[in-house]
């Protein structure tokens, strides 16, 4: 039922308290949080730094603008509606296509334009934002799933979470939506987490609900065969998020678009701990290792990624 704390320590598992005090509290300056807590700001910042993100269609900032969304949505076949200040994937609606006047969500549910309006209204009022502060709605292009994920995703886009510490990618995980997770990529909602080798982008280990699994629960596809194409580019993209934000300890959520390649979906200044379970080992030894490295020596992302791929490899 319980695991001994000494065993956890031997595995180098990072606990919530240690993460909050020794890493988030120490390496993430408070005034930089808005850069990542607001997806719109992250997006605009990423454009400045030439970090690829899904194409922004339009932003709804005020309640009265909701009336006009019909025209703005007219040309869009599929799109994603996101609260700028939402957290944990809350309030994100993915519209895959239209059926007559209605819209079809990724879960298959059919919704009306009024449903979208109500959702936007709620979002603007702060329903999904931390502390209920007023919010903005982002409408952006749908991501086209890359062929390499064929059979691995159910109702949702697989995304890759990379924990970046002082610019060094220290751990990576692929998150696959399942029927149980309702198309969402959150592990505690039942998504599958696949730990990825930092050197190769190959599958190390996979879990659902914290328990090891070997195949996708819905498609029965073996997870061991997963290998992310263009892995080094992914790591470099994640590593550059540190230069972009200045936050020392972040989780970068990346996606692989079939046409546009790796894109930054969002950044998280308080990345969760489930990535360790997906990988089957703890973050702490790598974090302590990176803490000792000199920042000047690894000034650019390529150097950091090269170092990481050499030192944190799991496969020979």
């Amino acid at each position, binding site marked *: 039922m319980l695991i001994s704390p000494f065993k*956890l320590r031997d*595995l180098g598992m990072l606990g919530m*308290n240690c993460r909050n005090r020794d890493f988030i509290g120490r390496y993430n300056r408070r005034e930089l949080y808005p850069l990542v807590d607001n997806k719109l700001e992250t997006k605009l910042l990423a454009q400045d730094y030439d970090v690829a993100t899904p194409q922004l269609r339009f932003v709804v900032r005020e309640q009265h603008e909701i009336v006009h969304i019909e025209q703005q949505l007219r040309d869009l076949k599929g799109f994603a509606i996101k609260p700028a200040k939402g957290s944990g994937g809350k309030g994100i609606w993915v519209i895959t296509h239209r059926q007559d006047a209605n819209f079809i969500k990724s879960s298959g549910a059919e919704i009306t334009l009024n449903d979208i309006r109500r959702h936007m209204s709620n979002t603007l009022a702060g329903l999904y934002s931390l502390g209920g502060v007023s919010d903005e709605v982002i409408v952006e292009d749908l991501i086209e799933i890359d062929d390499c994920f064929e059979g691995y995703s159910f109702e949702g886009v697989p995304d890759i979470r990379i924990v970046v510490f002082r610019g060094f990618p220290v751990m990576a995980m692929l998150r696959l939506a399942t029927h149980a997770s309702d198309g969402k990529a959150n592990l505690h909602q039942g998504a599958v987490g696949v730990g990825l080798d930092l050197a190769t982008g190959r599958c190390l280990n996979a879990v659902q609900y914290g328990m090891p699994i070997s195949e996708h629960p819905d498609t029965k596809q073996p997870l061991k065969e997963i290998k992310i194409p263009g892995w080094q580019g992914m790591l470099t993209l994640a590593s550059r998020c540190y230069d972009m934000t200045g936050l020392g300890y972040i989780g970068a959520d990346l996606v692989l678009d079939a046409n546009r390649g790796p894109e930054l979906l969002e950044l998280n200044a308080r990345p969760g701990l489930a990535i360790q379970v997906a990988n089957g080992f703890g973050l702490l030894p790598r974090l302590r290792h990176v803490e000792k490295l000199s920042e000047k020596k690894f000034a650019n992302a390529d150097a950091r990624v090269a170092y990481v791929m050499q030192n944190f490899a799991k496969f020979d």
Partner: protein
Amino acid sequence: MNRGKIPFYLLVLSLIGAGLTTAWLRHSTTEIPLVPGEQKPVWLIEARVDFFADGGATTITLDLPDEAPAFRLIREQAASPGYGFAVLDDQKNRRAEWTKREAYGLQTLYYNAQYQPVEADTAESANLPKTQSVYWSEPQSTAARELLRGALARSSTPASTARELIKLLNPNAADQNAELLLANESSRAELLVKLLNQAEVPARQVMALKLEDARRRQVLQPMVELYADGRWLLIDSMTGEQGLPDNLLLWSRGENSQLDVIGGQNSRLTFSMIRQTVPAMALSQVQFTDNLFSMLGVYSLPIEEQSMFKMLFLLPLGAMVVVFMRVMIGLKTAGTFMPILISLAFLQTSLVPGLISFVLIVGLGLLLRSYLSYLNLLLVARIATLIVLVIFLISILSLVGYQLGFNTGITITFFPMIIIAWTIERMSILWEEEGAHEVLIQGGGSLLVAVFAFLLMNIQVISHLSFNFPELNLVILALILMMGQYTGYKLSELHRFRSMSNANDVD
């Protein structure tokens, strides 16, 4: 240990030290008990003066104990109808004085006082008292000299001299000199005092009252105090026993008269006494009103503010429980400190009715909220609507409860309504997004923390300590600071990461 942490640990230690020291000082100087409901024994002693008044102006003065060793005066009063009464304090010699312009026939005056037994004061008295000069007429003078010579020969100290003298004065073994002296002196105690003074040992006669529960018509007994080794030593002139017994109250020490009656005759002084127990708390409040700690204590405030502080001083404990539950255990709660407010409300409503009404209000609120979803309201308006609905719910529950004869109906109003409205809103969104399971986890976690905090706050000792020794909250502050430094695993993480137990150790 990390060197940079030393100032922090010093801060924590000094907070704990300051809290405990102040509490201990407060306890030792004002005798506020450390546990509630502590009882302390006190003696209620009643002196009764009977006399026949001659019909004219009457003045009666009664000697009162000044500094009775091992006893502390708590309160005193006189009950004598028609008499003027005052306690005169003349150079540390306290006397009660009754006065009346015209009194006739049998008069009875009462004086009663409460005395609390305390630790005997062993401090040395400052100045060496002078021996009184002694005058004998012949042949007592020779007899006294002879008696003293014999006693002094067999003794080395003032105390042993007194003991030998008492032996010699023992009626059964008395020699001729002793018999002669006893025959001419009315009281053995007085004789002993004279002899000791002649031997250059300062001595005086004291009047003592033996305290026994529920005795009446007791009289003062003469005893002897002699001065040796820098303090007064009590000696029983009959038995020769030295030292002060527990139940002996020295009513008068060295004063000349116990009772003076002017304008009356056949006066008689008797005592009755009873042993009582009183709450130590009340005793402390009566005695130490002008103490620094009492002035800085909550008791110097009006009652209304006191009851507010009673709640306020419990809050740090609740905050500590929340910190512990979240940092060490890893319970999820809806709203960080919402559970404390709920537990404070439980203190007013008591646990089971409080739990029932809380669950009822939140449950009904969730039902109403699910209807509000359809109205597509703006968030702020929706919360405001919820607040109004919660107030209606609470009023209805109160009224229904009252009509059904439950007192708890009225105390429901102690629940913080705005917090409840927000809780309902959060729970409802949680329900829509994460499902009923997560609502149960967070709601249950909040209630668990609230109940735990309530059970702690409801312990009598804890509420007593937090109210009477507010400085103990510094200790709680130190503990909270300590927990803020904890970077180990939470209990919940041991469960969350349980699947890691088959993983191999890191390379």
